[in-house]
């Protein structure tokens, strides 16, 4: 999927890959895929697939995974509390736009009334969650990898609990609703009928689909630009060898802080849209399992490769939102077909939706043990790895190769 790495000044280490004969074919396939995605809502209506409502949250989750990929894939920092930033984004947007928020008592009529606009609130959500990322990262990014993971886990546990407990502001477990809707041409998303240029249209949730698509496309573009920027290369350097990168004049803390903050800000935008789409948010949407599912998406597809992350996201989300339910239905039907009451009962007790955790857990264990680089590995890592050892993740971290033997060295503290 990925095209040959483009040459950028300062990245001379990579040799330009000669033009691929397959490339034209890939381009055509890509164009077909894009056309399908753009036309999907109409195809959905035409053929009655009724999967549009599953696709919107699916795409939002994939965007979320792309944001996490900056932290985990590019900068190599394990974040187990990503859902907290997502929550912060969603609640920030809700604070500005919901009539139930404490701000709604202050804002209307004040000089800051313009903040109640959805688009403004979304930008605020991006800024607030980015700031939260920096706030958490600043004291903690000096920590070693696994300790950092636990700090993020702790943070991810604290945020939903604070939301639950601070009832006067957040409405506690009941959650915030309704939430301001995005609009375009004076037409509110998800409100029917809607009048554009004198035409009355019944669009349903289609505007949300395109909004998600646009946000996703912007994210992909921004992430590719980031990856190829000076900052992106600094992330890769830190991920592969922090001490060497430091020796080359990269400040590891600021570089990681940027990864943390930018990764968090992506979840802010997603959270704002998700809240507006569902029209209600509550703390249990942002718990630990959400963080792990998003992490699972990143790891399954291929950490550090955006196409891999999207593939992983697609696989996990389509399982979660479409196939788990339908497969269970099919199994129940198959049980009923046998006609035997005990077999029917046994088949009926089988519920894949109940086994979601099991599937994600298995997925994490199997990927880590059998193919730690994911389905579609990061190409750049693979190229550099060729001169090194085939599986970078399996190289002993604390030892150097001297005369063919593993000799442990003093561990850097």
């Amino acid at each position: 999927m990925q095209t040959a790495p483009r040459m950028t000044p300062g990245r001379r280490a990579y040799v330009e890959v000669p033009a691929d004969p397959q490339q034209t074919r890939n381009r055509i396939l890509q164009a077909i895929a894009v056309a399908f995605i753009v036309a999907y809502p109409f195809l959905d209506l035409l053929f009655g697939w009724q999967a549009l409502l599953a696709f919107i949250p699916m795409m939002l989750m994939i965007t979320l995974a792309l944001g996490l990929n900056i932290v985990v894939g590019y900068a190599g920092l394990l974040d187990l509390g990503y859902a907290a930033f997502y929550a912060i984004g969603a609640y920030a947007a809700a604070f500005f736009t919901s009539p139930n928020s404490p701000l709604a008592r202050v804002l209307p009529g004040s000089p800051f009334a313009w903040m109640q606009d959805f688009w403004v609130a979304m930008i605020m959500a991006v800024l607030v969650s980015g700031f939260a990322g920096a706030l958490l990262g600043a004291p903690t990014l000096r920590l070693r990898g696994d300790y950092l993971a636990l700090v993020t886990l702790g943070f991810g546990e604290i945020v939903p609990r604070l939301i639950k407990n601070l009832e006067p502001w957040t409405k506690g477990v009941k959650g915030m609703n309704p939430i301001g809707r995005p609009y375009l041409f004076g037409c509110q998303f998800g409100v029917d009928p809607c009048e554009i240029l004198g035409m009355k249209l019944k669009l349903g949730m289609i505007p949300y689909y395109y909004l998600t698509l646009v946000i996703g496309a912007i994210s992909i573009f921004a992430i590719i630009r980031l990856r190829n920027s000076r900052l992106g290369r600094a992330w890769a350097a830190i991920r592969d060898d922090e001490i060497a990168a430091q020796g080359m004049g990269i400040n590891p803390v600021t570089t990681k802080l940027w990864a943390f903050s930018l990764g968090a800000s992506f979840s802010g935008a997603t959270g704002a849209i998700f809240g507006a789409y569902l029209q209600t948010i509550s703390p249990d949407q942002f718990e630990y399992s959400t963080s792990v599912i998003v992490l699972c998406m990143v790891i399954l597809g291929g950490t550090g490769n955006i196409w891999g992350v999207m593939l992983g996201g697609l696989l996990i989300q389509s399982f979660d939102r479409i196939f788990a339910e339908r497969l269970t239905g099919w199994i129940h039907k198959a049980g009923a077909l046998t006609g035997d009451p005990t077999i029917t009962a046994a088949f009926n007790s089988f519920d894949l939706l109940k086994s979601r955790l099991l599937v994600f857990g298995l997925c994490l264990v199997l990927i880590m043990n059998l193919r730690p680089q994911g389905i579609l590995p990061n190409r750049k890592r693979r190229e550099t790895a060729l001169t090194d050892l085939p599986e970078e993740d399996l190289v002993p971290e604390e030892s150097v190769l001297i005369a063919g033997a593993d000799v442990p060295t003093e561990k850097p503290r």
Partner: protein
Amino acid sequence: MLTFEYFLQQLVTGLANGMLITLVAIGYTLVYGIVEIINFAHGDVFMLGAFSSVTTLQALGAQAVKRVANKDQSPIPETYLWLLIALVTSMVFCATLNVLIERLAYRRLRRGSRMAPLISAIGVSFILQNVGIYWKGVSPVNFPRYIPQIDLVKAMGIDSFVRVTTKDVFVLIVTVPLVIALTLFIQRTKLGKAMRATAQDRDAAQLMGIDTNRTIALTFLLGGALAGAAGLVSGLYNNTAGFQMGFSYGLNSFTAAVLGGIGNLNGAMLGGVFIGILAAMSDGYLDARWTPVVIFGTLNLVLIIRPSGILGQDLAERA
């Protein structure tokens, strides 16, 4: 309410809970000390230990349930035998489970980056939670009330608000000897010596003829056995067990291990008791819903301010 007696009461509860946390925390700390892996699934092993105890006890003692229905509080002699059987089964079960987990999910990743085993462990934790759901369902199960709740303070004829019940004592009776036995095992036996050597330098230990794979498996075995014991005792103490208790107890225990200095056995005990008391105080003086926030806040503060914990020395010297 805010009297000294109330404070003492919270202290007693905290101490009993703290000892349970200690048992689980030791599992984290042993494993981290020897392979530097955060065995994230450890809390869920503990949860399954509680479930296995329920199953054993239910199988053994339908009688006891009848006695509870008759409000008969007097202890029956057979119960102690049953409790012992349940304790041993739970310990064996959890030890086996933990060794299996190490073999299947961590061994291949031992030499890799620190992230890989952690992610694998999270996966295992999810799998075990689901096993728990299939085993006992989503809603918490009631533990048979084997341990009578007799207030010892009142029994001694002292009229006081503070209650020290037989349950609190029971927790101490089981946990303290286990911790002492473990400490002696690590300090006095040859296998314990092998564990300490492996923790210090795995390659050198191997060169000295220690089977490091077996030693690491042994570490998981010990940790699992303690978690199994904690599963039974916590079930009997709290009279309830649910599939989510592994996650919350696990995080509390992990916090305890980190607070004391991860990899350090004494640290795990100190941290366990501290976290138990902290949780009880937060329950008593703030509100139970704030307790997780307090605990995780403590975890984060410790990690930020002093990642090596209270008793942790340099990371090179462990266990």
